[in-house]
């Protein structure tokens, strides 16, 4: 088995599991649309474009958080993580496969969120789409690792947002900047830099988080 086939098998397992149980994805979809509706009522009548875009990013981050708290739920409840760690594959493959499935969930959620945003609030530019795609990678990379970290603690659902949100601040800055600033390229570049740094760091440190 090569590294790539390990990753593909593990990612396929996660996606298949979700496809059969439908635990997480419907909740994320419903949440992101509800959040947008709540934001409509939270904004004043003459809402500005800046505020709307900012709220879209909040909705994305919190929807991701919803998915991430469930990312290792099956592994934890069924004691599956021990089995995975014992499997003769590189531990970072587990992280990469989980990242791929988290990105897949996020893409589906945003495939609903962005059209709803366009419908409720205003047009969605190409910068916003690129920024969301880049942010997904960063969110999945950091979030998967922190989800595994939080899975070892007693108060998992409570700890994960606290660990994740400070790390999500640069993503929000990059995302909001990309859709509002005059030069989106520098913000998109920043998001790509964030993805690279934290993907490498998470990839390298995942092994220490899951081994006993």
């Amino acid at each position, binding site marked *: 088995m090569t590294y790539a086939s390990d990753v593909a098998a593990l990612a396929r397992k996660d996606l298949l599991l979700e496809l059969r149980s439908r635990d997480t994805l419907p909740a994320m979809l419903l949440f992101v649309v509800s959040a947008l509706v709540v934001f409509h009522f939270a904004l004043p009548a003459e809402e500005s474009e800046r505020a709307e875009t900012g709220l879209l990013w909040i909705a994305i981050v919190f929807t991701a958080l919803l998915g991430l708290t469930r990312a290792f739920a099956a592994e934890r409840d069924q004691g599956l993580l021990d089995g995975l760690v014992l499997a003769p594959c590189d531990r970072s493959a587990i992280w990469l496969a989980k990242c791929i499935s988290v990105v897949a969930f996020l893409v589906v959620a945003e495939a609903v969120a962005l059209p709803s945003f366009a419908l409720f609030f205003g047009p969605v530019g190409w910068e916003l789409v690129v920024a969301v795609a880049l942010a997904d990678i960063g969110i999945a990379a950091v979030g998967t690792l922190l989800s595994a970290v939080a899975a070892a603690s007693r108060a998992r659902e409570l700890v994960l947002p606290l660990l994740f949100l400070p790390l999500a601040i640069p993503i929000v*800055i990059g995302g909001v900047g990309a859709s509002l600033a005059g030069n989106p390229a520098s913000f998109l570049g920043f998001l790509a830099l*964030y993805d690279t740094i934290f993907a490498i760091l998470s990839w390298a440190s995942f092994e220490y988080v899951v081994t006993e």
Partner: protein
Amino acid sequence: MSTSSLSEDGRTGKAGPAFDFGVASGRRGASTLALAAAGLLVGGIALALYWAPEDADQGFSQKIFYLHVPVALTAYASFAWAAWKAFRLLSTRDSRYDLESYTAVHMGVIFGLLTLVTGSIWAKISWGHWWSWGERQLVLFLIVFLFYSAYFMLRYSTEPGPRRERNSAVYALFGVALIPVSFLAVRIAGTILHPTVFTHEGANLPWEMFLAFCVCLAGMLSLAGSLYLAELAGKRADVALRDLRELLA
């Protein structure tokens, strides 16, 4: 950094007798360092107040610079030290680095809180507001402070053991990656979302000011070092006591 050179002798004798715990050597190092800190801080503040020239724009209120910036740099030094110890823990799997990393984060958070308070006071005096989102360093510090506060939540909610040591270490390592990334983020956000209203008088300090600043910085680093050693000795004694109790039970 004075913290880095001095904590070497604060480390427990790993192969020493089981009931030494390095407490005695830690206390010795801590008291030497505390004396140095007291001398340097008193000297530095005296230099800053009576000798360094007054700032042309801000007048007397600029004096808080000699407290605020050294405290902030000390907090960064503590976080870097924590990350270094975390790295050592992950590479050697030696669990004594866990307490050292934890104590360094603890110091960093204390000095980080002081930075936020002194920065807030400075902001109030300079601009009349307790908080300004235009002041990048302060915003960056708030992000870093939130990040490291979550470190404690993680630690307190995980059962003690190798798993907790490694998770905390990985999180502490993420911190040193987050600091430059957030610095960059706040910087690019500052150029577009919030106009910069204030630039630090960093590079073009008169040498008297710079000297007073350096003495204050050295004093603050020694203070952090002595607190670190004292705290470490206390935490080690706690662990040793728990081990003894378990042995007796």
